[in-house]
């Protein structure tokens, strides 16, 4: 009997070996080669939910690396932690003809901590295998399995994670018991999933992606999730670190999170409660009270990320933050909520995807756990919903900035989860307004003063300068303002932290050799401080729409007093362009010895059709040209 088993195994093995694909690189279709750095020959991802606390992930992948730039994408990276157990890793390397040249297994992998750089501690580790092949193309084939003990956060299937990846064949299979209900959402995939029952009576869902060409980088693209293929799965019943739950909508999920992760974490000792009552007792307006509490929290705490406990999604106890004076975003929001509760102000713990470049909201149509990376606070005053980020020691109360503006968030409340939307900063809010009075003397030196006001998301533009030593501030200003030989005589930075915050910068400066003389002519750059020097690159056959995350307005007015007796040698600058996505005007007027330069640039947020892109490049080019306008003055 034993022999029989061995033989069967051998047969199976041979069968598996027979079934092995041919990884000859020359078999890759020419169609897939443009812009491809690697080609995924075959990828199979299988997730099987055996029960609520036992999910098996099995991934096999064959990647052909076409050149050195693909080495990073060929690297095998498998993450694990306390509740994710690695079962096996094996793999092999094939040369360009598809002949196997080496093999590897788990013991050949390096093991690292996988904590984020910003974290003091996280229970996350990673196994990494880096292939070492110097002849291209080559193919790496690997096969690994891991088991997760939770069903709340199912890995998303992302068959194309990057530009430069072409796909021959990729599939995703989700297997579960017939009565295990899931919600799913497939994006940017043709066709519907194949749903069937396998020989064991299990329900299977299968998605496929074949012959996908490599994407190239296109500037001003929307967030990659909106154009890359992917499948998200959310089981209706789940267990997470031993806690069970059920959800079908954001309301359920928000309620589960509130009840299990937050509700019991907000107790404070009576001394702290008393203190909070004391410092707010003379304030009548609830919003001003909340501001006082927020500022108290800001002054007392700072951000330290330590991810322990329930999957890193449960905040520290408020009392612990009160004692330690630090916490991460969860802990600090939870603590602020507890402080507010002490004076009977109700607030919400809100999950958000923080990102400065894209306003990515939680999806209206698909509730799931892993859509946010940050927590902010919402205080629902009557007719005045106020928002606050609790991780900064300096930002004003009620200010979110570009990190979390204009997007869906999930408020976790005792009544259940609610999708809410954070405030949007429009081009009227995001303003940078500058006025300068400069004199240029006979030697070409420039001197004068300049005042700039920053509002909206621009409010934060000078944060890194504030409270820095003067010498450091000077160094930074010399980098910000491209005037050669720039010396700062005086700097004054003021921040107005009211509900409509603004930053005002006053600078007195001088610089030698700003203008140069030759042959009785006088040359200097008209735009001294706010130049755009590069246009976005042109893109042939663009695929993505043009996305401008945020509108803004820049206004500069510079008045130069120049030595008298000069006239312009070339035509004065006069540019005015208006496009659906923006406006630009730049003008120059010389009256007597007063030269006035005005520049106004506006971008209008929105998503525009891909055909607009060339227009955008031309628009930028016109700005670059205007910004490098060289004044040439000749003696009368």
């Amino acid at each position: 009997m034993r022999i029989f088993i061995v033989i069967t195994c051998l047969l199976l093995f041979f069968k598996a070996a027979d079934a092995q694909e041919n990884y000859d690189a020359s078999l890759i279709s020419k169609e897939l080669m443009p812009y491809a750095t690697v080609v995924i020959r075959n990828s199979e991802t299988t997730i099987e939910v055996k029960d609520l606390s036992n999910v098996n992930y099995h991934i096999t992948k064959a990647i052909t690396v076409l050149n050195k730039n693909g080495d990073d994408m060929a690297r095998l990276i498998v993450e694990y932690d306390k509740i994710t157990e690695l079962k096996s890793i094996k793999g092999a390397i094939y040369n360009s003809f598809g002949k196997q040249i080496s093999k590897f297994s788990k013991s050949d992998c390096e093991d690292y901590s996988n904590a984020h750089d910003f974290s003091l501690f996280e229970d996350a580790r990673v196994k990494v295998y880096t292939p070492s092949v110097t002849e291209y193309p080559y193919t790496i084939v690997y096969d690994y399995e891991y088991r997760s003990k939770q069903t709340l956060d199912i890995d998303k299937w992302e068959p194309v994670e990057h530009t430069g990846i072409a796909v021959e064949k990729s599939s995703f299979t989700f297997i579960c018991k017939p009565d295990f209900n899931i919600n799913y959402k497939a994006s940017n995939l043709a066709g519907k999933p194949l749903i069937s029952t396998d020989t064991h009576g299990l329900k299977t869902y299968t998605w496929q992606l074949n012959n996908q060409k490599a994407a190239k980088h296109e500037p001003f693209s929307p967030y990659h999730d909106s154009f890359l293929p992917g499948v998200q799965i959310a089981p209706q019943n789940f267990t997470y670190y031993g806690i069970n739950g059920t959800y079908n909508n954001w309301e359920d999920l928000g309620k589960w999170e509130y009840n299990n992760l937050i509700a019991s974490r907000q107790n404070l000792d009576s001394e702290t409660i008393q203190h909070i009552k004391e410092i707010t007792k003379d304030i009548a307006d609830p919003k001003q009270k909340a501001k006082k509490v927020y500022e108290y929290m800001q002054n007392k705490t700072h951000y330290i990320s330590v991810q322990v406990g329930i999957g890193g999604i449960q905040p520290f106890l408020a009392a612990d933050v009160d004692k330690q004076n630090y916490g991460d975003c969860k802990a600090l929001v939870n603590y602020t909520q507890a402080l507010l509760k002490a004076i009977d102000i109700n607030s919400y713990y809100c999950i958000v995807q923080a990102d400065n470049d894209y306003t990515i909201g939680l999806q209206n149509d698909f509730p799931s756990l892993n859509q946010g990376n940050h927590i902010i606070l919402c205080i629902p005053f009557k007719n005045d919903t106020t928002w606050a980020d609790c991780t900064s020691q300096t930002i004003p109360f009620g200010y979110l900035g570009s990190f979390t503006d204009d997007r869906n968030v999930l408020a976790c409340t005792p009544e259940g989860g609610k999708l809410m939307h954070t405030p949007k900063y429009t081009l009227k809010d995001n303003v940078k307004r500058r006025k300068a009075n400069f004199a240029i003397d006979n030697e070409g030196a420039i001197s004068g003063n300049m005042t700039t006001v920053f509002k909206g998301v621009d409010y934060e533009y000078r944060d890194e300068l504030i409270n820095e030593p003067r010498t450091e501030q000077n160094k930074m200003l010399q980098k910000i303002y491209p005037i050669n030989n720039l010396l700062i005589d005086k700097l004054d930075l003021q921040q107005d932290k009211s509900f409509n915050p603004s930053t005002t910068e006053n600078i007195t400066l001088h610089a030698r050799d700003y203008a140069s003389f030759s042959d009785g002519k006088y040359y200097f750059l008209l735009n001294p401080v706010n130049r755009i020097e590069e246009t976005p690159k042109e893109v042939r056959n663009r695929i993505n729409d043009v996305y401008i995350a945020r509108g803004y307005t820049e206004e500069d007015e510079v008045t130069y007093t120049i030595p008298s007796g000069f006239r312009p040698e070339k035509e004065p600058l006069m540019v005015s362009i208006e496009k659906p996505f923006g406006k630009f005007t730049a003008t120059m007027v010389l009256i007597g010895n007063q030269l006035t330069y005005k520049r106004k640039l506006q971008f209008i947020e929105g998503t525009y059709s891909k055909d607009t892109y060339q227009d955008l490049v031309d628009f930028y080019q016109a700005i670059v040209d205007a910004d490098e306008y060289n004044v040439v003055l000749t003696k009368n």
Partner: protein
Amino acid sequence: MKKALIIVLILSLFTKLSKAQNFTFGTATQQEMDMTKYAKDTSAHAVVLQEFGESKMNVSSDDYIKVFFTYHVKIKIFDNKGFDNGTVQIPVYNNSNTDLYEDVSNIKGITTYKDDNGLTRQIELEDKKIYPVKENKHWANYKFALPGLRNGCIVEYQYTIESPYWENFHSWQFQTDIPKISSEYDVHIPGFWNYNASIRGFLKLDKNTSEIEKECFSSGGAHCDCSFITYGMHNIPAFIEEDAMTAPKNYRSAINFELVDYMNPYTGAKVRYTKEWKDVDYQLKTDSYFGRQLKRESLLKDRIIPVIAGKTDDLSKAKAIYAYLQKWFKWNEYSGISCVDGLNKALDSHSGSVADINFSLINALKAAGLKADAVILSTRENGSINSLYPVIGDFNYVVAKVDIGTDSYFLDATDPLLPFGMLPLKCLNGQGRVMSLDKPSYFVDLITKQKQKSTYSMEFTLQEDGKLKGTIINYSIGYDAYLKRKAIKKFNSTDEYIEAINSRLPKLKILKSTINALDSLDQPVGEIYEVEISLYDKVSNGNFTFNPFFLNKITENPFKMTDRLYPVDWGMASDQRNILTIHLAKGYIVATPPQTLNVEMPNNGGRFLSTYDPLDNTFTFSNIIQFNKGIYSPDEYPYLKELYNKIIQTEKGEMVFKKK
């Protein structure tokens, strides 16, 4: 009984004596609490009030003799920009391949602060909030954040590291990025061990005393006296980094120790570690991960037979071997002067550390009958080496030197794009030491002929519509060729590279392009473009103004500070030439010619030269920017800055073309 008591008494007396140097844990004076600024540097976000370290050798609980390093610091934090000083990481070497590892113990932390009511309070670091993290197979980290931070608080912590590595006797950083009021390091070195101490940086010691401690070390019946040395500094300014400088640690004030020799306390045998170069030579020559790996020609002999087949002269043999191994290996990003996996494994797996790869190269060259040696060096990032006496720990990289005829070539086979005889920039850091197996080692200058150079030859015809049509020929030479190859290879194909340049410069339309010698590493990379450039949208009253520096124009001075403390270190000299020839459309003349200028730095340090040669309706305008040195001292800084200033001034000037 009586005897034991006496010993205990003496011991406690001793501990008391040596403890007297340290300061008491957990005390903050009223004056320290009331400080709102550090008077000597009012812009500091935090200041070290007191810092004390102590190293001694002792028998640990597991019966090994180890170095015990204790660190204790008290820091005043003025505002939240100084809060980083309350988060601590203690890295320890943790080699999982052996049972030798460093350990951290006695971590204690405390914060003293004023509470909401102005009362002074203290809060201690909890043990469970200290996080040990195994970062990778070599390093572990102990991390913690001190509790209770507020503006104006005082944080204090201490810990002890036990290390079995006598050769890594703990160094001491006097200068860091925050100022320090007082910093002191006490070392107790038993007579069995001998170390060289070296001080780096510009600051002077305020305290430097030494005395003999009688019978301070005993182990297994052997005992000896110790040297007890104290190094101290007061009022240490913060270290401020500058652009274009080499490793900051070259300039930061610190003290380092290098093990010279030791006597085995149990056997009495003297073990020489390092003392003079001849000792280092001996040690490295016999080291199984260094010298012995350099005698393995047999391992490479067969492999290189086909590589050098048919090659008659030494230079072409060497080049063939170099190219072969460059292709064979992929560098695994590990540096160091000793082999990590050994040559066998490295050759088999096509992967190795710097030493694995370059030792293979040396062996292969020797197997071909060539004279090749290892050259150890310290990379720019790693800092400079001690030139007074050997500090082997300073070296972190090894390359090959091959002698052919009267010429020597430095070779590094870890990068497949480096041409024969060129070192990567990271290696150009003063001198390297040639470790020859058959003669004494010696220093050699690493920077010899290496230069970065590029030329742009442009020939255009100015059309009536204001468009320039013609060719741009760009040669990248020397190190520039290497950089250019790297840039081109970032793309999947040269077509994609050209598409990228084209799309970056919307005004320039590339009609035809050729790239020469992309894979012939010894030659300059040539790029030839037939282009059409639209410099004008409209032509008004027949006049064109034109900036002849439209390609490679410098508008910003990289040097902004008025003066500088540390040298500007570019690593190598550079040279850029632009030659522009323009044929004017019929009926046009040059109304305003471009500015010409010749400026030179003192002592032939560098220059900017532009010349203008008109001829009928054609003109040639050339300019050269040369920096003849790799390193400029702070004294030369103003000239360097001014040269850039002159270049920018000149490049602002515009030419005017007029219709006759």
